[in-house]
């Protein structure tokens, strides 16, 4: 019978093929918590006195971020606020919003729920009824970033923490390589590096944790999480790349780490050569930072007024 590599207990809950480590439930939970906190320290993602806004969807990744960062809040190192964006996806989002609220309440963390309907004027479902040329992820990503950035300023947050995991990050790297989006590659990293005023720094504390380990962690710790797939994700390019990476990881369990490490090494060179500088403006509609006269979120909103 297999036993835990750390304590020798017989009941194993994970076989970490990338390291050959087998761990029992207690040792796995401790290992993950320590790993995330160590990554935060090593990469200087958070400093004492930060107010961190957690983008809390209620899914496994953001719930885990909230709970681990709460250990820093309990030690009075940081302050936390949780923000859930209700995109308006009927039959899917309601459970996530409820579970997000449940987690924030259990920890006594201030929680705000902000809907696309109130901020943008339409739910994502309504947007998609009239849209045939773009996929839902485009609108969702643009509006979510737009809303989070505004709320972060309202709340006086110094960082925005998201639940991006190792799978998400390696998917982004590979997608942008394959599509030749070199400019997008310059923006991938453990924390955003925008020099422009008005942008709150975004951090990814789970960037080195595989998605399956996050799922195992939330189940092992019995955290309430929303385990469901977004109905709009469908057969996206990201989903195809994700499936490919998971498939190839079976034979090459360290492949996602090596993709990430290799990318982090060449990023400074790509950034120096391809980063677009000095073109940031203020959106004439909403006052948010923008690459042009009108930001992407407002250009979508204005296009609806013309319909």
């Amino acid at each position, binding site marked *: 019978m*297999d036993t835990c590599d750390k304590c020798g207990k017989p009941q194993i809950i994970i076989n970490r093929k990338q390291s050959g480590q087998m761990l029992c439930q207690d040792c796995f939970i401790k290992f993950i918590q320590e790993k995330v906190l160590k990554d935060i320290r090593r990469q200087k993602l958070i400093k004492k006195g930060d107010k961190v806004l957690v983008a809390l969807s209620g899914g496994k990744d953001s719930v885990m971020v909230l709970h681990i960062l709460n250990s820093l809040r309990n030690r009075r190192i940081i302050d936390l606020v949780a923000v859930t964006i209700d995109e308006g996806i009927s039959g899917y989002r309601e459970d996530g919003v409820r579970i997000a609220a449940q987690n924030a309440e259990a920890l006594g963390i201030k929680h705000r729920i902000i809907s696309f309907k109130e901020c943008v004027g339409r739910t994502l479902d309504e947007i998609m009824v009239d849209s045939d040329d773009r996929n839902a992820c485009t609108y969702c990503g643009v509006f979510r970033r737009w809303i989070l950035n505004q709320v972060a300023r309202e709340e006086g947050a110094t960082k925005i923490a998201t639940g991006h995991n190792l799978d998400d990050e390696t998917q982004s790297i590979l997608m942008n390589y394959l599509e030749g989006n070199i400019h997008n590659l310059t923006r991938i990293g453990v924390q955003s590096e925008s020099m422009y005023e008005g942008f709150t720094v975004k951090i990814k504390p789970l960037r080195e944790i595989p998605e399956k380990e996050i799922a195992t962690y939330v189940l092992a710790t019995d955290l309430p999480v929303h385990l469901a797939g977004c109905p709009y994700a469908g057969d996206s390019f990201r*989903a195809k790349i994700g499936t490919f990476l998971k498939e190839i990881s079976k034979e090459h369990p360290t492949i996602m780490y090596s993709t990430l490490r290799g990318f982090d090494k060449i990023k400074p060179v790509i950034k120096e050569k391809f980063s677009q500088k000095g073109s940031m403006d203020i959106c004439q509609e909403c006052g948010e930072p923008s690459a042009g006269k009108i930001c992407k979120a407002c250009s979508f909103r204005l296009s609806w007024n013309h319909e």
Partner: protein
Amino acid sequence: MQVTVIIGEDEKKLDVNEGKTVKNLLQMLEIPVETVVVKKNQSIIIEEEPVEDGDIIEVIKVIYGG
């Protein structure tokens, strides 16, 4: 031997040959092992865990595309 398999709200009894593992069971059910966490008799287990007569196996889908 027979095991009970719970997937979401669906529960069924399955006949399984002796000496099979959770991984074999998932293959039988055509469920990709990398997208699920499995509990045996309410405890999380690894895919190499043997399946025994009377086990209750809960397959929890945790990874979705997109």
